[in-house]
């Protein structure tokens, strides 16, 4: 069975479900837009995390619980949002004191490219897409743990490279890469595949990864 035959309908769920297992009870977490926002629904009931929204929330929704007037409460994408009871609205200075100051336990975000040294590129494709970095550069520098959650390839092209070719978001910041194909740790010597999607062979993952990939001697199935 090869990567192309993976059921793509629940690809995002596979990634989000696995990322959820990385979070600990009490963690303070910042989730990037898109796939990472699916993570909370897969948390076990005994794992409660506090979500940060860099726009200025500690204890962001998802469920509307207190003020949810969209003129006054939005998420990082400007969409209507809400805050939990016991949360706090903070200004942007405090928001980035939390982010840059090492107070965020983990951030989960997407990537255009990641490489063997844990370098990350996720904010610009020169000449094509120049949205700006928003808070991403601060997040990946400041969070205690940086988890990339993404599809393993982009239209069949590897996104995990020996060396990023796109402009970097930060140097050596990535700790863990979670894709629909498996889980890859960034180690001082390079990338280590520690878990694999049970529908795939190691050769499938290696073929879809441009960076050299060590295979853990205790490789397990991705849950």
């Amino acid at each position, binding site marked *: 069975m090869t990567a192309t035959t993976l059921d793509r309908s629940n690809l995002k769920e596979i990634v989000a479900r696995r990322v959820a297992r990385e979070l600990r009870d009490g963690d303070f977490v910042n989730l990037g837009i898109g796939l990472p926002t699916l993570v909370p629904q897969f948390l076990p009931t005994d794992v409660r995390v506090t979500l940060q929204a860099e726009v200025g929330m500690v204890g962001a929704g998802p469920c509307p619980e207190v*003020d949810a007037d969209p003129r006054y409460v939005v998420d990082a994408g400007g969409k209507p949002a809400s805050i939990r009871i016991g949360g706090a609205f903070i*200004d*942007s200075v405090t928001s*980035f004191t939390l982010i840059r100051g090492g107070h965020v336990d983990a951030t989960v975000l997407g990537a255009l490219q990641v490489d063997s040294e844990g370098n990350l590129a996720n904010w610009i494709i020169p000449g094509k897409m120049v949205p700006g970095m*928003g808070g991403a*550069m601060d997040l990946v520098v400041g969070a205690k743990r940086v988890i990339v959650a993404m599809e393993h390839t982009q239209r069949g092209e590897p996104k995990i490279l020996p060396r990023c070719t796109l*402009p970097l978001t930060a140097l050596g910041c990535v700790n863990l890469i979670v894709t629909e194909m498996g889980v890859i740790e960034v180690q001082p010597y390079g990338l280590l595949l520690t878990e694999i999607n049970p529908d795939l062979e190691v050769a499938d993952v290696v073929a879809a990864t441009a960076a050299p990939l060590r295979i853990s001697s205790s490789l397990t199935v991705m849950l």
Partner: protein
Amino acid sequence: MSKLISVEDAVANISDGMSIMAGGFMGCGNAHNLVQAIIDAGLKDLTMISNDASMPGYGIAKLVEQRRVRKLITSHVGLNPQVAVQMNAGELEVELVPQGTLVERIRSGGAGLGGVLTPTGIGTLVADGKPVITVDGREYLLEKPLRADVALISGYRVDKNGNIWYRGDARNFNPVMATAADVVIVEADHLVELGDIPAEDVVTPGVFVDYIVTGGSL
């Protein structure tokens, strides 16, 4: 000396070519009436300093759409397609700054500091041409302070001293920008009496505020 003035008198403090800070995040926390008054007054060639360019038709996005902005200093423009159009046409200059660096540069300008030493941006395009300072073995970029001629602030409750209380996360860049401009104008959603905002709950003390206009909130 009342700080309370009309929206028209408030924007009379602004001239073509000035730099303007606008609080807000994707339009949430923009001073919507002041933005409209700037458009109505025909002001142009502005340098805007704001977290983002908002979303089409909302808040400060209108200033870009109406081509009043010559330069944007911002962290994110992805939700306002007009920015890319004007940028690619060479009509709009965009300086992209990491969000945490942007807020600290503004803070630095308001607090009389010489700049920011941040690890953010090291090894990236953001570092181009900037001094790198090593402190205790770790490298930091020296990012310069930012100030503006005018700051447009949006507040939910504002008293006559200019004390501001913000609702929700419409707060965002507003408090820090209120510290870093020569003229600070707050658009009040609700004008309240002195004492209605408990002294402990004031977020922006009125001494930062020069003028108050009323009629805020869409």
